[in-house]
């Protein structure tokens, strides 16, 4: 039952929200020890919130568009009085005194949080293996990773632990796990969703977005969390999107560009597997069949995204993660001086990938290296913005694979960080230029695991993206025998 059907059943009083939540909690109880999607299951609070929804329905009050819908929240978003860990030892014991704006908004929409989901520590990773609480497994094949860093949120929806979930996407952390778990995952335009209460990784790249099984559910959740927030200065001053009413408008006459550099084309990025390229081409054909005009386009700087990203994101992270110093909250490892205490705390509290990125970022910002590294990465961002802008003069949206491969085996890529980093090669450009992008499941790979294709659009093109995503979704289900 989709989140939207659940909500309407709860709103009409046909189903009790408490029953819905109990059903999901039972599934979590039965299977999460295997999957490890959750860092914390908030069963009591969820039942309480569900009871409040039922009470509102009984009292004839509007319980919100997502009434009684179980939702899982990535554990890097603050929840009042509920441990928020970023899957790091360094935040041990910390309970935020406030809610992230998105947490407030989903609650206001009537959704019920069932728990906080696992992630790569501080959202740094592409497999959810860099967690202080152990890896999350892909519910579709537990020998495989669910993707990352929002692997817990993806797994929670894929395993029916929750109807919806929220992830954060700094370089692909929503879209890539969505692709690996056969879900719809959306990274909105930078500034479309408030970051207030999201524990920062790369502040100029981070965006919160929805996971769901269908495009329509994704649209409904984005409508609920989007819109201006005065607490986030980078939040765009405009009302929440109207997406659900435009979903069925089709793609007749829409111009879709296949982005050569990210789709296995000549001069593009290497390592995109043949089955993924095939699915992407089939998705293009399906859109064309539905009335879109499909052309091949080129954005040469798209190939530079990965290098620029691995300077910008670590640089910002090195500064954002300075505050975890043992002084005010979380872990403290005592030592004889304040400085030594800070060092001891950070040494014990951060995992190896986080330390690697703090070092990378510190180096990239250092006097004498700034221009060669961070400064150059900023120039790449500017160049990419210009090139994407000119390509959007020709086409409405772009189509690429979401990830180079389907979900890989646990432990396969942990030895060499570079093999992990290239996972994000197709998703990173949207973060660097602040544009929206969605991953929609489209068939399966040679291994039978889902393949995701990605639709990219210019800033605030969410309605167009959701329109095309709906068409893709329809084509994918209509041609379920693809491959």
């Amino acid at each position, binding site marked *: 039952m989709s989140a939207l059907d659940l909500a309407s059943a709860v709103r009409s009083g046909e189903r009790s929200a408490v029953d819905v939540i109990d059903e999901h909690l039972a599934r979590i109880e039965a299977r999460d020890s295997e999957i490890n999607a959750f860092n914390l299951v908030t069963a009591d609070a969820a039942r309480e919130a569900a009871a409040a929804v039922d009470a509102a329905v009984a009292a004839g009050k509007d319980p919100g568009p997502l009434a009684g819908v179980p939702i899982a929240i990535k554990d890097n978003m603050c929840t009042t009085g509920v441990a928020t860990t970023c899957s790091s030892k360094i935040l041990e014991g910390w309970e935020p005194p406030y809610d992230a704006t998105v947490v407030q908004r989903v609650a206001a929409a009537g959704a019920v949080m069932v728990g906080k989901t696992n992630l790569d520590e501080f959202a740094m990773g592409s497999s959810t293996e860099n967690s202080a609480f152990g890896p999350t497994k892909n519910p579709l094949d537990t020998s495989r990773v669910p993707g990352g860093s929002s692997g817990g949120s993806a797994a929670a929806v894929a395993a029916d632990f929750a109807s919806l979930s929220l992830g954060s996407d700094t370089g692909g952390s929503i879209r890539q796990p969505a692709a690996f778990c056969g879900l719809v995952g959306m990274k909105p335009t930078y500034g479309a969703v408030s970051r207030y209460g999201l524990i920062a990784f790369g502040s100029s790249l981070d965006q919160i977005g929805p996971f769901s099984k269908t495009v329509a559910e994704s649209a409904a959740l984005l409508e609920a969390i989007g819109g201006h927030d005065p607490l986030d200065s980078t939040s765009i001053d405009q009302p929440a999107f109207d997406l659900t009413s435009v979903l069925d408008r089709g793609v007749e006459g829409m111009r879709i560009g296949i982005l050569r550099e990210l789709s296995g084309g000549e001069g593009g990025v290497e390592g995109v597997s043949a089955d993924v390229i095939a699915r992407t081409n089939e998705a293009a054909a399906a859109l064309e069949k539905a009335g879109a005009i499909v052309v091949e386009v080129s954005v040469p700087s798209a190939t530079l995204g990965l290098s620029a990203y691995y300077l910008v994101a670590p640089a910002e992270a090195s500064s954002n993660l300075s505050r975890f110093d043992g002084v005010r909250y979380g872990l403290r490892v005592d030592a004889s001086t304040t400085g030594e205490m800070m060092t001891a705390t950070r040494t014990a509290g951060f995992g190896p990938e986080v330390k690697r990125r703090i070092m990378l970022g*510190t180096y990239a910002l250092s006097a004498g290296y700034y221009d060669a590294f961070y400064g150059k990465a900023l120039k790449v961002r500017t160049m990419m913005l210009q090139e994407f802008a000119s390509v959007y003069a020709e086409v409405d949206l772009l189509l690429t694979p979401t990830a180079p491969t389907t979900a890989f085996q646990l432990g396969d890529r942990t030895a060499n960080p570079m093999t992990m980093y290239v996972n994000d090669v197709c998703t990173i450009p949207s973060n660097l230029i602040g544009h929206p992008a969605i991953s929609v499941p489209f068939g399966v790979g040679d291994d039978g695991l889902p393949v995701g294709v990605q639709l990219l659009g210019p800033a605030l093109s969410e309605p167009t993206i959701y329109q095309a995503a709906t068409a893709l979704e329809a084509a994918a289900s209509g041609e379920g025998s693809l491959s």
Partner: protein
Amino acid sequence: MTMHEPSLPKEWELVVGLEVHVELATKTKLFCGCENKFSHIPNTLICPTCVGLPGSLPVMNEKAVEFAMRLGRALGCEIHPSVMARKNYFYPDMAKDFQTTQYDQPTNADGQLALADGTVVGIERAHIEEDAGKTTHVGGGGRINDATYSLVDYNRAGVPLVEIVSRPDIRTVEHAKAYVSELRDILLAIEVSDAKMEEGSMRVDANVSVRPTGSDELRTRCELKNINSVRSLGRAIEYEARRHVDLYTNGEAPRQETRHWDEEGGRSTAGRSKEDADDYRYFQEPDLVPLAPTSEQIAEIDASMPVLPAARRARLGERSSVADEVIVTVVERGQDGLALGAIEAGADADKVLTRIQNDLAVDDWSAVTSESLAMLIQMETGGELTATQAKQVLGEMAAGEHGGDPKAIAAAHGFEAMESDELETLVDQLIVDHPDEWSRFVGGDDGDRKKMQGFFTGQIMKATKGQADGRAVAQLLGQKSAG
């Protein structure tokens, strides 16, 4: 040994630049809604943002930006589009372990400050930044590295500051002191800060070096911190300059470092050397948007700018011939408007200004108006009041006696000028009554004459209960003895 250190030997010239931090008197802090005020109870004026809790975000206080621009314009600066930057360093009272400040794109640049004597000091920049909390180190030597423990109060964290950086244009201790006084007067006049050095809302660091007189080189400078008053600033600069001269004289050289001024000991002690200073890894603050003041905003600031102290002094200078110090004092006390009004109302300008400087050094003089002051001065110049009486009447006017009306106050005391024939009758009578004294006045040596003038004046004052004009008495005695 003299109490006063002699000034520098004439072959050496002092070179000083000042960095002044000013707390802006906004209602709330720079990036959050916490009250910007002093509290004796630690950590009572704090929130997630100013304590740098994970997930919190800054929102720029527009009033603080306006105040900063006001100050910039008062210092003749250009206002530029600007960005906030992060200055990264670990310190427990810096909640995020970075300070949000301005680096290569400050709001205000290239201004100047004219001192009362006409000397112009260049202003390099006046940028916006946040204050840190306060750390108290307990035990050990009271410093961070040997304390038993340290306590941090974040009430001050996030208080808006402007740092005004002068060019190294200051050549004397007097000018350094005058610069700070002038800056304070401007801050008070434009109402952006209470500018109290003793309370820390204005903090002065001095960059001091010396060079051979006549040379235009800039030698190694030391930055003096912990200067808590204008007097202390003078002492610190003098001490430091002599220290440099002594080093050079001995064939040594100072090293570039931060030094701590010890007011009690009257000396500076070495702090951290600049060579092993932190690399602050500045980069643009991604959580805030650039500041882009419009020309309308700047025009509005200019239009609302009050007349500044320098112009106010010039206004009085044009109308009087008193010494500069008199005007400086009157303007500093904010009594120049009062003086100007009295002068316009026809009172003698020099008398008005000296009377105010000498006899209106009170906190509250609101009962004195330009009209009543003009009347008082006219009564004095017209001979209705003696100088002593005028002083007394002004004191009572300030206290609001008799509605502040000088005529009523004078009448209540029976202060009335004696007609000159009345005074002459009195003098004639005294000459008759005291023939011996009179002959000593007429025929004695200078000593006798002086003594006897005192005697006769005393007698007359006694007879008139002090109402006689001393100068008129002297004049009469002279006439009588000559005639």
